[in-house]
């Protein structure tokens, strides 16, 4: 029962979706409930935890602090778009796996999106820069050390030429 419906067209992971959404629908809920892309997790819903981080036109943003209607005409990337079509992990995903960068995994999609954008911008980051980039993502399991290790390893591997 939409009280203020809007037609939107959004590109998510390269695929264009056209939907009618109520203005009060959060982008995070639109991605999960309307598009059934449940890889984007919802934690605090007020912009603190970072679990719902997606890329909007290539930049990491909190999808719980955007309205779905605001995404009209924009490009979104979610965790579902990181691996190759055959399921091969991206370099960062593989590094997170190799370095035990996750335990319960709830924060992981947000961290992957944040760090994917960060490593595109900063190809040879030091540990301090990585921790600064990670500062908007809460992880209660790992203590962050293994995530930092994974990011350092992924950056080194990406520098040496693989994706």
């Amino acid at each position, binding site marked *: 029962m939409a009280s*203020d419906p809007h037609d939107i067209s959004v590109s998510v992971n390269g695929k264009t979706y056209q939907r009618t959404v109520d*203005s*009060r629908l959060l982008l995070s809920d639109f991605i999960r409930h309307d598009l059934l892309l449940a890889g984007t997790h919802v934690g605090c*819903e007020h*912009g603190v935890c*970072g679990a719902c981080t997606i890329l909007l036109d290539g930049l990491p943003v909190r999808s719980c*602090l955007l309205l779905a*209607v*605001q995404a009209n005409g924009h490009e979104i990337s979610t965790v579902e778009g990181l691996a190759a079509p055959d399921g091969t992990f991206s370099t960062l995903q593989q590094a997170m796996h190799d370095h035990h960068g996750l335990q319960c995994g709830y924060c992981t999609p947000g961290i992957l999106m944040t760090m994917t954008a960060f490593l595109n911008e900063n190809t040879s980051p030091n540990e301090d820069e990585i921790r600064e980039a990670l*500062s908007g993502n809460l992880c209660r399991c790992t203590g962050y050390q293994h995530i930092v290790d994974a990011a350092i390893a992924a950056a080194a591997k990406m520098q040496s030429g693989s994706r």
Partner: protein
Amino acid sequence: MKPAPFKYIAAATLEQALALKAKYGDDAKFLAGGQSLIPAMNFRLARPAVLIDINALKECSGIAPHGSGGTRIGALTRYRTLQNDGSLGVAFPLFGEALPHIAHPQIRNRGTIGGNLSHADPASELPALVVAMEAAIKVKASTHERRIAAADFFQGLLTTDLQPDEMLVEIELPAPQPRTGTCFSEVARRRGDFALAGAAASITVDQEGLCTHARLSLCGVGETPVDASDAAAILVGQRVDTERMDHVADAVRRMIEPPGNVHATPDYQRHVAGVLTQRILATAYDRACHGL
């Protein structure tokens, strides 16, 4: 944790946005970065009947020279743009020093300077910065426009001088005087979080190293950014030595009424504000005398 129903209108031009605000008044909120407004709506602390999305108003975004050595910043300019602008941090070192303390990368990619100042969260850094920098805030309505000194803009907790039909459109930063040193520092529990206390200072000296002008402001320790320039005025005409800085810090401790929170009692915040005051005055004075 979901917003109450509202009517959403994406404004295509500034004129349209202002006409809508004139029509709906206090029932409408402008939606810029949404990094304060949407959480407030998710919590149902804010229930605007109408949201006027101004994100398409390109004319309200950007950084441009203004007057002799000053800078104009469009209200819709995002933190990311401010931080990535190489010349802004050079021309206004206080800005350059404070920007990395503001929020987290995901917030910086959306949050705007105009939205931040309009929201007027006293814990936020930017209101204290524009007060210390003696910025002017330009607001517009369909029928008029006016400039407000930053020190007069913030009137209470989350309350500004903005009238129901007005929009903050621009911030004007005046050129710093020669031999001016600035410093910003804050204490926060976690990088990017709101500070327990933060302080900004700007000190100008003459050829002999005597202070000719001093501005001091604090964030996180009251209902508005605290303009403590009156407390710092005792430095004018003087060399800024330890005794005088202690004096200013004492005055700051007396004048503020920190709210306290789960991480800090009001007394601890008062203590931190005093220590920060001493530190930033010393650094700003040193920079004024020796450059930077």
